[in-house]
């Protein structure tokens, strides 16, 4: 009897130990590595700019951007949710039709998006994303030939929708990820002076009516981005094309900016691993896009 009891206790202990061991394994299996995808790109192309506060004429020239993009699967549900952070600095240089006046556009934008990811069972190489984003944008348009109205400030905060698709394939032995992404603000606020209001009046303290609610009817923007990520060893070469369409109308002032740019840059995926924990060879790696 006593031996039987000891045997049962040993058995229970071994079962408990086995369950505990399985439990630890399952915890580690459900905590995958989530590498950060960081991309640094530059864009160069054409710009078509019009701002009727500064001039009724359409200006055309070139547009350049520097971009930083960071994507990472979310810890709470890495298979389904992806975060995207974007930072863009833009410079436009455009001329009037007579080419005797130059307009410069200087702009920066910070955006953050939360995207739901869908993997298509019938097409495992394809991932679809949809979600929302918020963005803050600031800058100025400068037309220095104008005396009292040489600049138009740019300021906006918006929320909107974003969709994207990524497709992984191989061209010969080179892994390639194709992506198309589009985003459009749906609501927000943006800055504009009144029809003929000088900034001097704002400087004097008249701040009424400068901030306007934005919706696609008065603040339309559609940013398109198509990229091909060529996986060259540990580094990714990113080639792409961006087309940004912007048009706003408020207080009788129409502002328009249409830009086409070719994009070139590098992207890397990286992980932060604590020294004490080491690398778990059994942990899954869930990339934000690849």
């Amino acid at each position: 009897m006593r031996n039987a009891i000891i045997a049962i206790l040993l058995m229970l202990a071994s079962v408990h130990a086995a369950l505990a061991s399985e439990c630890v394994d399952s915890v580690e299996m459900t905590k995958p590595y989530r590498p950060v995808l960081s991309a640094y790109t530059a864009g160069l192309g054409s710009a078509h700019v019009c701002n009727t506060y500064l001039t009724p004429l359409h200006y055309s020239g070139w547009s350049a951007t520097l971009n930083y993009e960071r994507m990472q699967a979310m810890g709470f549900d890495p298979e389904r949710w992806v975060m995207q952070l974007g930072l863009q600095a833009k410079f436009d240089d455009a001329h009037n039709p007579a080419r005797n006046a130059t307009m410069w556009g200087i702009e920066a934008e910070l955006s953050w998006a939360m995207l739901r990811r869908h993997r298509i069972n019938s097409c495992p190489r394809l991932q679809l994303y949809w979600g929302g984003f918020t963005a803050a944008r600031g800058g100025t348009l400068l037309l220095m030939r104008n005396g009292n109205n040489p600049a138009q400030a740019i300021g906006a905060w918006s929320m909107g929708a974003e969709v994207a698709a990524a497709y992984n394939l191989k061209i010969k032995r080179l892994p390639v990820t194709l992506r198309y992404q589009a985003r459009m603000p749906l609501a927000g606020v943006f800055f504009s002076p009144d029809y003929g209001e000088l900034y001097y009046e704002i400087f004097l303290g008249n701040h009424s009516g400068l901030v306007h609610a934005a919706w696609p009817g008065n603040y339309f923007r559609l940013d398109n981005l198509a990229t091909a990520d060529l996986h060259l060893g540990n580094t990714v070469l990113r080639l792409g094309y961006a087309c940004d369409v912007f048009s706003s109308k408020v207080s009788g002032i129409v502002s328009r900016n249409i830009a086409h740019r070719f994009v070139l840059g590098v992207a890397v995926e990286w992980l932060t691993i604590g020294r004490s924990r080491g690398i778990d060879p059994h942990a899954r790696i869930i990339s934000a896009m690849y």
Partner: protein
Amino acid sequence: MAMSSCHKVEEYHGGLYGNFDALWKIVDEHYCFFDEKNVDWNEARERYRAMLDPEGMETTEFFNVCGAMLSELQDGHVNLSSSFNTSYYRKWWSDYRQNFDLRLVQEYYLDFDYSQSGPLSYKVLNDSIGYMRVSTMASGITHGALDVSILEFADADCPVIVIDVRDNGGGMMTTTQTLVERFINTRTLVGYISHKTGPGHNEFSEPYPFYYDPATGHMRWLRPVVIVTNRSTFSAANSFVSIMRLLPNVRIVGDTTGGGSGMPFSSEIPCGWAVRMSACPVYDAEMNLTEHGVDPSPGCRVNLDPELALQGKDTILEFALALASDWRSWYKKQ
């Protein structure tokens, strides 16, 4: 879809008629004094458009027709600028006596010996009256120059100063503000500003009151001031006079100022010529529009006598100095 979502922007075309129509429409939608000037802009369009000759018109001839149409507005703030010419309405001063001779002042009153910093010249005259000339508002006046000049007047115990803004064609309102803030002791309502809210001739915002604060931490002059003006005192200098006129212990001596109380707005036409026009009316603190100028104080309208000028007498400045002397007597009695 994206392109069709863009908001409509009027397309302006080149050629004589395209550029002419663009110029007419830009002014039609932004100029602010059609009623004050009693201008029938539609009639002007028809009259000057009929002068266009697409077959044999030189560029300079076309420019002159456009410039002549703009002159209908009788406004010194309206210009058409090309690479070869700038149209300019001059009658706001050319139809009147100049009433100013800089050499006369420099030679017979300042003895070619005065302090100068940028547009500011100053000297204590022999009879302990401070003289300050501000030649333009187009460049800033340094706080240092204003501090030193006012300190010099105070050290000489000047009871009154004379500020000469004759031939000051204006410039920046911020320079006007810098100057006015040396002559006030409390936050002061100095005027109202309005702007176009749409393309209609009568679409204006509610006039917005604006205030200037005393230049704290700097020398200020709160004793009497005599301001000397002529028809070429224009734009930001006109605003300076319109503001100072309503301060206590300030007299305006000379001729009516040139006006120019509409803050200009710039635009351009397809051929690349720049156009500038009055777009934002500025009123004084009593809601008077000073587009046609500021009159001298009652009894203080004086002209420069050319014969006496030949003898070294600036009759306007003489009047101002006499007024200052009277004030000095009053001040000493106090």
